[in-house]
């Protein structure tokens, strides 16, 4: 993985010193909250319902065992013993004191980490493929480019105060696992006819209030030029993006207003000034960075392991885990393993300090000391010997990270929602839990097969509900939490946006609604057809008809909060269903 040189260390140290002084000036009253807010956001610090939340960057989702142990340490020392992995492959801590934030940043700097630009109207953490470097369908490893872009975007003096946040995703594989189509800039490695590496560049995708699939601005930007090209895109956006209305300020609105052809014309007119200039990436710099991502010392191994195959025949739980949580690897005899953070009863993406420490140890024992975080909010050990799979599975079981549900119904993407977030209209963690409990039966989940269920507690769509095969969105109706259900969304190469099926439901109705959607799927599917493909083939109507055919009963044991009893402004006295309170 990328290792800081003395220059990286110096820049990060200066940043922490700057923020420490800003915190001091805030506490002394020299800075108003309005002035301070933007600075703390650009250092990852949000004010949430209960406390400050600190979002720490995990660049392109890759981290070392030592870095994971640092998260465990932060969870213990400064938080309540757990953290939350996010859809941007970052980690969030929910119970942070302002005074501790600079100390935490000091601690992070010792393991070459930071919280820079994880919030605010600037270029955010760049996400990438959790199987980068090991995927069988990879054209080129995207991580060196992601790191070069990370450095370029870090404290870029022109782009610290953009109209709105700006998100990059980058993939190097044939199969898009990073949702490039719903990012401000999505980059996909491609090779041209001469075999040279470049990027297909998408622009203006996004979720939120106005979900839009990104448009291709250029089919091939040679890798040397990707920084100058991206810079021109962001410059045009900085100059012309709307600043009069926060809901129309993302680049997608500008691209839509101008049209992709006119936007491209403006970008390429700007690019003529910098193309081939000093910001062109040199082979030497690419090689320096790429060397950090060279393959570990793989051993020559047989393609498959006989003992694992035999064990798999005899042990159904292991077999389920192999089927769902173990992915192919480009090197014979190796596999990539997902540690599920989606066990029923646990907030999706949450891990305790003990789990973090243990995952770090597993990484050292089985995967060259590295881990990845997925945008689906699970962990990956990317380089596991197949002959270690049985031992690793047993260890994962001990840690409650063995749930064989990757890509299944209970592998829910879920935002922090109303339990933590000031923006939320509704709770999402307890809803994920209610759904998981209703469909906890693994045989049932395996029978349903691959399906993505995504929950967002508000229209900002941190839970990516628009691209869930089933998407659930929390909405506010006169101070009560309701949920809108959509189907037909998808990420990946055939990305699409879901469509709402009809009027919204209460918290307690949602599990039954999901059950009815699944009934239609089971009734209508062809053999081997995934839920999303059935929706695409037969359309929304059969699903809608069944869901709304008869009144939807509340799920047993689930309470809809008695809103009348709540005092205004104290929503957290409501009957609790969250696991953490």
């Amino acid at each position, binding site marked *: 993985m990328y290792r800081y*040189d*003395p*220059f990286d260390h*110096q*820049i990060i140290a*200066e*940043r922490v010193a*700057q923020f420490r002084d*800003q915190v001091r000036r805030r506490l002394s009253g*020299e*800075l108003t909250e309005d*002035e301070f807010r*933007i*600075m703390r956001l650009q250092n990852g610090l949000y004010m949430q319902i209960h406390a400050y939340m600190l979002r720490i960057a995990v660049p392109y989702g890759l981290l070392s065992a030592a870095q994971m142990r640092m998260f465990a340490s932060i969870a213990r020392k400064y938080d309540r013993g757990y953290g939350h992995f996010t859809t941007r492959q970052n980690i969030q801590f929910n119970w942070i004191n302002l005074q501790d934030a600079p100390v935490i940043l000091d601690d992070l700097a010792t393991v070459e980490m930071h919280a820079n630009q994880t919030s605010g*109207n600037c270029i955010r953490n760049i996400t990438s493929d959790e199987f980068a470097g090991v995927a069988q369908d990879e054209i080129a490893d995207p991580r060196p480019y992601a790191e070069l872009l990370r*450095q*370029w975007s*870090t*404290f*870029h*003096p*022109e*782009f*610290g*105060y*953009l*109209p709105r946040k700006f998100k990059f995703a980058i993939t190097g594989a044939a199969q898009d696992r990073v949702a490039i189509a719903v990012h401000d800039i999505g980059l996909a490695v491609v090779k041209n006819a001469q075999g040279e590496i470049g990027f297909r560049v998408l622009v203006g995708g996004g979720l939120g209030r106005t979900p839009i699939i990104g448009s291709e601005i250029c089919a091939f930007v040679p890798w040397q030029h990707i*920084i100058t090209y991206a810079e021109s895109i962001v*410059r045009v956006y*900085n*100059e012309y993006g709307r*600043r009069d209305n926060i809901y129309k300020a993302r680049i997608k609105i500008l691209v839509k207003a101008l049209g992709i052809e006119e936007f491209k014309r403006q970008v390429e007119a700007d690019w003529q*000034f910098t193309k081939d200039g*000093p*910001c062109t990436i*040199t082979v*030497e*710099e690419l090689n*320096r960075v790429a060397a950090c991502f060279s393959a570990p010392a793989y051993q020559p191994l047989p393609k498959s392991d006989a003992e694992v195959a035999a064990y798999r025949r005899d042990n159904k739980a292991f077999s389920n885990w192999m089927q769902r949580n173990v992915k192919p690897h480009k090197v014979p005899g190796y596999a990539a393993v997902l540690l599920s953070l989606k066990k029923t009863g646990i907030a999706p993406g949450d891990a305790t300090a003990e789990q973090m420490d243990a995952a770090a140890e597993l990484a050292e024992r089985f995967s060259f000391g590295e881990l990845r975080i997925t945008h689906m909010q699970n962990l990956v050990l990317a380089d596991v010997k197949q002959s270690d799979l049985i031992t690793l599975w047993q260890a994962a079981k001990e840690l409650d990270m063995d749930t064989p549900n990757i890509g299944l119904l209970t592998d829910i993407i879920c935002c922090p929602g109303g339990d933590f977030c000031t923006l939320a209209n509704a709770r999402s963690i307890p809803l994920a839990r209610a759904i998981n409990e209703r469909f906890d039966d693994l045989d049932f989940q395996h029978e349903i097969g691959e399906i993505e269920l995504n929950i967002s507690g508000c229209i900002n769509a941190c839970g990516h509900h628009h691209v869930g095969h089933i998407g659930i969105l929390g909405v506010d109706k006169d101070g009560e939490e309701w949920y809108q259900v959509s189907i037909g969304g998808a990420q990946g190469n055939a990305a699409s946006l879901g469509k709402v099926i009809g009027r919204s439901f209460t918290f307690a109705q949602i599990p039954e609604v999901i059950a009815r959607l699944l009934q239609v799927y089971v009734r209508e599917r062809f053999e081997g057809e995934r839920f999303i493909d059935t929706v695409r083939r037969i359309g929304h109507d059969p699903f809608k008809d069944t869901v709304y055919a008869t009144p939807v009963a509340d799920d047993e044991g689930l309470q809809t909060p008695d809103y009348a009893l709540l005092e205004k402004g104290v929503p957290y006295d409501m009957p609790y269903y969250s696991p953490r309170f």
Partner: protein
Amino acid sequence: MIIKNKAIVDDDWIVLRLSASDTPEGVAVPSGKTIVPLKVWQAQRAALQHRADLGVWLASNERAEDLQNDLGKFAVIAVDFPRFADGRGYSIAYHLRARLGYRGELRAIGDVLRDQMFYMQRVGFDAFAPRADKDMHEALKGLSDFSLSYQASVDDKLPLFRRVQRGGEL
């Protein structure tokens, strides 16, 4: 007082701002060192163009390119930050310096605060008029928050990887 070339210096320029009842054509430009809005310059060009004590300022929604042929006519060009979170002024400055080759004084005016001044300096501002309620000596410290930057901009024409031996000693 303003900050210029990293020092606090006296300043006797007046920034002319139009009131609601003023028009660019009709407003009276005072004698003496005056920084006028771009619109006033455009409207009263014939009367103003021979003044030696003239400056112009751009609003955040105006374009550096509008001054393309006039850059030599001003003793100072200013860029207004209506709110410190409005980042258009950074690209305006970049264009003036990097694309149009402006070499005279480039001054940040308006909601100019210490914590934004390092980036402002990088994109080519060499003069700063911090907001009136802020301490000038405190603001000056903002110019030295960092000693190193990754990217090229107006101050460093080369990105870090062409400026130093990456991987080597500081």
